[in-house]
């Protein structure tokens, strides 16, 4: 698939920017996102290719402007809905709940 994820050789993306003493996770939500993905993946609901394909179907501009674990978030939401684990209305209800709680 020739999508935005196929970045090899692309020009104009700027310098590599290594961080010294980089932590494994940069924020608590990254820890949770990582664990959610690993845990549902281990459950066998989807395979790694389905997970990656869901990332690769992100809108190109969004793909380039969001962070790595945001890609995971997009993919997990999408793949779980596509697998019938929950529907859009349930996800929206969960969004409304967390918004209310803050």
């Amino acid at each position, binding site marked *: 698939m020739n999508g935005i*994820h*196929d*970045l*090899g*050789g*692309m*020009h104009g*993306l*700027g*310098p*590599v*920017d*290594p*961080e010294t003493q*980089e932590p*494994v*996770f*940069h*924020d*608590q*939500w990254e*820890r*949770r*996102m*990582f*664990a*959610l993905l*690993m*845990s*549902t993946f281990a*459950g066998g*609901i989807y395979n*790694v*290719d389905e997970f*990656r394909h869901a*990332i690769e179907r992100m809108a190109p501009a969004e793909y*380039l402007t969001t*962070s*790595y674990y*945001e890609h995971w*978030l997009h993919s*997990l*939401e999408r793949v*779980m809905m596509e697998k019938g*684990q*929950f529907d859009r*209305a*349930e*996800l*929206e*209800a*969960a*969004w*409304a*709940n*967390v*918004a209310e709680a*803050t």
Partner: protein
Amino acid sequence: MAGHDHTDPPSDIALRVKALESLLLEKGLVEAETLDAIVELYEHNIGPKNGAQVVARAWIDPEYKARLLADPTSAIAELGFSGVQGEDMVVVENTPEVHNLLVCTLCSCYPWPVLGLPPVWYKAAPYRARAVSEPRSVLEEFGVDIGDDVEVRVWDSTAEVRYMVLPERPDGTEDLSEEELAALVTRDSMIGTARAGQE
């Protein structure tokens, strides 16, 4: 869905993850204790110190090194390191003639059992784009001086095959113990963006 009010995702990414977690918990698709255990494992137990032990052993034990190059997955498992994202390992050896560099142009494939989770720059667009088209420039930016007579080999990882670089043993380390040698082996030296012992 007439009359259904569309809800946008929370703009705060942390809240959006929280919402997903609460939904998955509610559905019984994940368990809180398991999530905590996964974080603990990858934040504290699996990381480049594992790979450093593999490299140090290969430096001091020629027979182990031969096994590591011939059947990497098994040789790495001998030291207790195996599992997801490292089921099919390939080890590429740096020599005075050849310098190896790892990338995953399509995403973030990386040998988790020996190196842990990849750093942000490895997963970010600039490295993925440039490592394959101008590896020497990238190496220079990382402070790795590669002579024109040295061949640079770039390995593009896949979901199936994960690479690890066996860096060159630094000069003047003949008297060091295995543990002291392992301390010279950094994450970047096993990706190829540094030499072992490089400051």
